[in-house]
């Protein structure tokens, strides 16, 4: 009996949590930042969400590209197909690794910081204070962060793929001696703008949506104590990573399997 009751309680909690999350989402999306007051806010957030994530994205992108080239080369050279190194690296980066890995790094870097920041603002009564100043915290605090994430992640994913391909070029062409012309031309032959690049961008927009939503909701809904914030930060990273991977599977099935 008690188990059933606790199951019911859990379910109700989940539903009401989802409801609050949707309310936050709707209010954040409704408030497209207006030009005069919103631009500086958006700037600030683009800085802390986008620019500050740039370093980790570039470094990881280069290394992942280099590793892909190394591994791919050793496998492909066995079939005498090292000319396919370019498309192999480009396709895996553009379709999967670029959007997914940058979303995971983004969740770890920007998502957790965002949850902690909003949670801290809640714990130190800054959000309440805004409300009492007749300023909607959803508009002032949440919306610009949301939009900054929306703008940043596709750009970060693009940068990730690009530097990854350059890293692969470094290893494959400059080090392992694959012909540079073949590397690019076979790649161009195999990579399609709409199918690969556009779908990658769509993926990262979806991931940005998921990561920002979870990060913002966890921060806004956390218990305003130190433990509450640390728990919220952890669960932001865990939940958004899992959801990104799950959605990636769904999106891949929709986009690339016919």
């Amino acid at each position, binding site marked *: 009996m008690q188990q059933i009751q606790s199951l019911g309680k859990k379910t109700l909690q989940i539903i009401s949590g989802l409801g609050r999350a949707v309310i936050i989402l709707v209010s954040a999306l409704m408030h497209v930042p207006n030009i005069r007051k919103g631009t500086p806010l958006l700037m600030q957030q683009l800085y802390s969400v986008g620019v500050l994530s740039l370093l980790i994205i570039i470094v990881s992108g280069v290394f992942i590209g280099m590793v892909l080239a190394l591994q791919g080369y050793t496998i492909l050279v066995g079939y005498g197909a090292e000319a396919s190194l370019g498309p192999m690296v480009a396709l895996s980066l553009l379709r999967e690794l670029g959007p997914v890995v940058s979303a995971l790094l983004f969740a770890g870097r920007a998502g957790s910081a965002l949850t902690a920041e909003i949670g801290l603002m809640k714990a130190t009564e800054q959000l*309440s204070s805004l409300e009492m100043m007749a300023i909607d915290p959803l508009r002032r605090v949440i919306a610009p962060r949301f939009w900054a994430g929306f703008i940043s992640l596709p750009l970060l994913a693009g940068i990730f793929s690009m530097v990854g391909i350059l890293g692969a070029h470094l290893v494959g062409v400059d080090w392992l001696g694959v012909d540079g012309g073949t590397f690019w031309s076979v790649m161009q032959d195999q990579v399609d703008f709409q199918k690969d690049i556009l779908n990658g961008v769509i993926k990262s927009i979806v991931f940005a949506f998921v990561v920002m939503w979870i990060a913002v909701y966890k921060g806004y809904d956390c218990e305003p104590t130190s433990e509450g914030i640390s728990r919220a930060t952890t669960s932001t990273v865990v939940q958004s990573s899992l959801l990104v991977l799950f959605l990636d599977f769904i999106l891949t099935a929709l986009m690339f399997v016919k």
Partner: protein
Amino acid sequence: MTSSVSETNLVEIENLTFKRGERVIFDKMSLSIPKGKVTAIMGPSGIGKTTLLRLIGGQIKPESGNILFAGKNIPLLSRAELYEARKQMSMLFQSGALFTEMSVYDNIAFPIREHSQLSEAIIEKIVLMKLEAVGLRGAKDLQPSELSGGMARRIALARAIALDPELILYDEPFAGQDPISMGVIVRLIRSLSDALGLTSIVVSHDVSEVMSIADYIYIVAEKKVIGHGTPDQIRNDSSALVRQFINGEADGAVPFHYEAPAYSGELIKKHSKELTK
């Protein structure tokens, strides 16, 4: 309610009932806050004094009852009307709640920038005036993290009066302050009230400070108002509860022990359980 009452009282709370989950916090409580005066609401910790301020500010909604602010019933207002009403009140939070990512100057300028179209030159004058009022004009370029607790609260006070509200809600303004900054804040609350004609509601449990500045005192305990009057009336109150609170006695009408089963019974029961193991 007659019109004369609403003229002299800025806030009027009638039959307020508020529950948190199953627990009743306030049960049909009524009190009124006179205009232009400093009204203190005192009581032991945990009886929902801060909750009362949030109710007045419309951040939470009561179970039943009216909260009238300048004639408007706060719980029934639409979102837009509530935000409009909040422009006439401000709240000094216990922690100060300064925005950590901006300087002291920007913190005080913030509500002005948000709610007015004034030019930066005018905003600067207003900010400097408010800082001067709390005696911290020299701190305008500091970051909130560089302020001491007392200074942060004074800055927060300067921000609270930035838009010249009619009502200021002070949430535990004396808690955790050293005697000097306590004295400064006591003086500031009094002088702001006298000079600007502000209506102030001070929620606190620091008896002596409150006694020294309040024009009128409500003592809240056990879900309702247990005593009210001017500081002198309170001092001479005959109610046992009020006397205990004012004099800070450990045991009395509010018992020292939290409700529990009989002490001896619980000890023996536990003991016997351990023996049987």
